[in-house]
């Protein structure tokens, strides 16, 4: 089936597929990018939103995408797990490769793809169910774990999302009963329970207070041991704090991509410099 193409390529790159092992998968060399974007353009109806994006996203690192509102950061993020496809009258050219396999190829099932690519949204959006069921939702659907292994899997995901200690005594409480910051970590745990390779975060802290934001940022730094993280953020300080690489988007184009330190200290494009110094955007 369609899933096979994706799964095969993973096996080659990461022979140790058990995601529990911390960080050290023999085949996963940091040098091979996890995502490879090739002249990717995207249209909403007649409006072109992305222009000829070409860059690679490094493995096991935090990559921040910054830029003013409407510059296409989120559109790009949602292209990686093909969530944009659900919007009518959209189209694209070019390609995005995940682990060397095109996410758009006929052999790639979007459903299988989204198992590999977890996503966390701007607003915390737990399902109106218990904390346990929220986390178990993905594994249940994807048949990743038998029901008797589920408690263990849920605990692992909640621990990784740094939420376990706060909720271990009330796993049967509604997910919506948690505070905003906890809900967002619950959503991260929900995404991690699928044991994805890539975690996409679309302004995950914009609805949170500074304390909750700090928790999530610390969490991102921890998580990059095991996952490749792409975060869209409007908060420049956040980008410089948590990310290893930064891409600056402007009017649908990738103006500059590189090492976060370099982008924030010696940007090579004057538009990047203007944006990060707060002269516009």
């Amino acid at each position, binding site marked *: 089936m369609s899933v096979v193409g994706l799964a095969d390529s993973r096996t080659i790159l990461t022979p140790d597929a058990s995601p529990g092992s911390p960080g050290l998968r023999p085949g996963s060399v940091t040098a091979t990018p996890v995502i490879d974007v090739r002249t990717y353009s995207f249209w909403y109806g007649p409006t072109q939103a992305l222009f000829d994006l070409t860059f690679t996203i490094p493995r096991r690192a935090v990559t921040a995408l910054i830029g003013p509102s409407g510059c296409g950061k989120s559109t790009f993020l949602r292209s990686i797990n093909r969530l944009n496809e*659900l919007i009518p009258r959209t189209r694209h050219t070019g390609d995005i490769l995940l682990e060397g396999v095109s996410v758009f190829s006929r052999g790639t099932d979007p459903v299988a793809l989204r198992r590999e690519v977890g996503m966390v949204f701007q607003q915390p959006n737990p*399902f*109106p169910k218990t904390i346990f069921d929220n986390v178990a939702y*993905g594994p249940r*659907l994807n048949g990743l774990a038998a029901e008797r292994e589920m408690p263990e899997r849920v605990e692992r995901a909640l621990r990784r999302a740094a939420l376990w200690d706060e909720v271990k005594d009330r796993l049967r409480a509604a997910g919506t009963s948690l505070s905003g910051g906890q809900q967002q970590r619950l959503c991260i745990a929900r995404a991690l329970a*699928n044991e994805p390779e890539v975690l996409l975060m679309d302004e995950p802290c914009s609805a949170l207070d500074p304390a909750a934001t700090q928790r999530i940022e610390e969490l991102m730094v921890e998580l990059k041991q095991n996952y490749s993280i792409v975060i869209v953020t409007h908060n420049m300080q956040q980008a410089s704090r948590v990310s290893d690489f930064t891409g600056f988007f402007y009017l649908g184009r990738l103006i500059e991509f590189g090492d976060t330190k370099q982008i924030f200290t010696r940007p090579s494009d004057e538009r990047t410099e203007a944006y990060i110094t707060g002269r516009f955007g």
Partner: protein
Amino acid sequence: MNARRVRRRVVNGMMTGLVGVLSFLAVLALVLILGNLVVKGGSSLDWNFFVKNPVPAGESGGGVANAIVGTGIIVGLACLIGLPVGIGAGLYLAEFGSGRLGWIVRFVADVLNGTPSIVVGIFAWTWLVKPMGHFSALAGSVALAILMVPMLARTTEEMVRLVPHSLREAALALGYPRWRTSLRIVARTALAGIVTSSLVGVARIAGGLVLLLAVAARSAIRQGPPHGAAR
């Protein structure tokens, strides 16, 4: 300053009183009708009233068992036909109904919603009663189901539309196929609303039994064992 505060308090008191009186008036009619019913009719309510069939006019005793059973059968059958169709159509309209087909379905549902029930009754009479050669509970149920479907479809659609888009995306991003997202997340979240609109739909058809005079008339009027009505 003080005068203004007194004035404010007086106006507040008057308005609160006024609203209270108006609400009392609104429920007064209902209370009077129900009270009258209970006071005058309560004494005639006994077990026999529910389990016995009517007796010919002029005799005392008897009950409305056949009417209760008949209503149950006809409405139950109508729900069996109407609920799945109506809720399914509503789900379709909300989730996939942005195209031309959705527009047509919505338009037809709205027209059907405004159709007098007697027209639906005549329709059922023409297509079910006449070909079958006799009045039947089934024909009545079909007619009621036809009344129920458009209303259910539209209210279900409204309820499903209230489900936040972010929940849908969350499920899709976890790898849920679209149809399972619709059924498991969206429909489940909207369930309370769908149940409410179903109940309103049932109440509406149970009250709109007039049209049954056209399609199930004889079996409704005929006396005798209730199962006769279902034949």
